[in-house]
């Protein structure tokens, strides 16, 4: 007994505080966009376990995780960059780094956090530990589609200029490679999990543009050229999102702009392999982590619906209406569940991806993005 007690006291003193012993692998954060707060969630318990407040304007906010999955860096619309501790459920540091920002990324080594800005444009890079400014990269353009790639590099695109820039942060001074001729008005981009293929979606063109980042001098490659040729473009009430989870088996699945369909592209040849008509204009087309299914949500005013597409047949196999304003989906790391933000129902809903049964509803205030901590170990997220 005495021996056990000694061991206990010893281990407690080594740990310092009890919270340090708590693992974070199945935790996550939900952005509560209207209230400037984050809900801390636990995947295994399918529950919220706390709330972090005071993060400013979180409309269209996103976040990334530190390599140890303890800290999140939250990119607010108001230009705020906030570092939060998900164990202590508190704000560690917060800087107002610009007037209007849209997203960010963390470098592969966890040292740098980069933020993509609309106003004044450009990208700013911060020390992940202190949030001190490390590099300012002005672009004279709104920047979008910022991702991390191996080699302590960030890649992003310029909405106004139609360029993609690669910023290498491995030396003291960032080295910038500019790729021109990407096309008109890139609105978002994705990078594959191997960091090789960067695909920019274009608002002003009838194609997307890919880059092979393994090349020393990447050249823009149009893909899906003329995907809506001969068809009238429908009004776009919300820009689609492109993210690195688009690979379903051997194909990318990408949302079409101005059409009610998703497009399939062979991941090696980048040629079109099919199209699937959808309920509305897709916003997110997300492959389940195993790639077997693709889940799709839609733009206003058809945003109460989800469709599930089979990756082999490319056919819709399930459709349902979780509720008003389904903004975001997040799969558990191995894809057995999907969590949905249903903004106007003020709920996060949890579904089984095999049976499509609803497993749980969790109260949340105008929820939008859902981010599980396993993103910490993924390139491009």
């Amino acid at each position, binding site marked *: 007994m005495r021996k056990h007690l000694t061991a206990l006291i010893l281990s407690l003193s080594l740990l310092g505080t009890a919270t340090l012993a708590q693992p974070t692998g199945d935790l996550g954060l939900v952005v509560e966009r209207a209230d400037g707060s984050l809900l801390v969630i636990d995947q295994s318990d399918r529950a919220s376990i706390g709330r972090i407040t005071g993060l400013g304007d979180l*409309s269209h906010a996103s976040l990334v995780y530190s390599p140890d999955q303890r800290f999140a860096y939250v990119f607010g619309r108001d230009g705020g960059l906030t570092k939060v501790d998900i164990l202590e459920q508190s704000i560690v540091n917060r800087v107002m780094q610009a007037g209007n920002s849209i997203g960010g990324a963390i470098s592969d080594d966890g040292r740098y956090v980069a933020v993509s800005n609309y106003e004044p444009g450009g990208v700013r890079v911060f020390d992940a530990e202190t949030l001190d400014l490390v590099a300012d990269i002005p672009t004279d353009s709104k920047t979008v589609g910022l991702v991390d790639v191996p080699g302590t590099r960030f890649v992003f695109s310029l909405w106004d200029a139609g360029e993609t820039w690669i910023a290498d942060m491995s030396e003291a001074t960032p080295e910038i490679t500019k790729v021109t001729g990407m096309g008109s008005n890139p609105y978002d981009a994705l990078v594959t999990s191997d960091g090789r293929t960067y695909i920019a979606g274009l*608002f002003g063109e009838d194609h997307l543009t890919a880059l092979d980042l393994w090349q020393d001098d990447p050249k823009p490659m149009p893909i899906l050229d003329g995907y809506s040729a001969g068809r009238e473009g429908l009004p776009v009430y919300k*820009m689609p999102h492109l993210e690195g989870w688009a690979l379903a088996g051997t194909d990318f699945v990408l949302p079409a702009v101005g059409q009610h369909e998703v497009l399939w592209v062979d991941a090696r040849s980048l040629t079109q392999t099919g199209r699937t008509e959808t309920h509305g204009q897709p916003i997110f087309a997300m492959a389940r982590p195993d790639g077997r299914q693709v889940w799709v949500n839609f733009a206003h005013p058809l945003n109460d619906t989800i469709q599930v597409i089979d990756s082999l047949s490319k056919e819709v196999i399930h459709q349902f209406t979780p509720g008003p304003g389904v903004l975001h989906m997040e799969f558990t790391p191995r894809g057995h569940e999907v969590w949905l933000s249903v903004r106007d129902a003020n709920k996060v809903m949890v579904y089984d991806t095999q049976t499509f049964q609803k497993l749980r509803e969790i109260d949340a205030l105008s929820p939008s993005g859902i981010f599980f901590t396993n993103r910490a170990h993924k390139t491009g997220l």
Partner: protein
Amino acid sequence: MNKALIFTCCASASFAAEPQPDAEALEHLVRHDCGSCHGMTLKGGLGPDIRAKALHGYDPETLGLVIKDGIPGTAMPPWRPLLTQSEIDWVVDYLLTGGE
């Protein structure tokens, strides 16, 4: 079915056969759906700042046409398929008066 229709018509007769705009739903639309591009606080994003001081000087009719027909060649879509004229008028007034 017929009874409900007659009731609706009578109730909205004073608004030229269009139902009175649902202020709460429209404010939600402006903040969240227009906010996709213009930001939830309307200070701008991919689309420009549309707060009252930024729109000062624009006449309501022009703003109404921009909302109704969009701006070709830009990301501003036409809202004609989704909003009635009285709803567009409400949104214009909401934007110009700073949401008060």
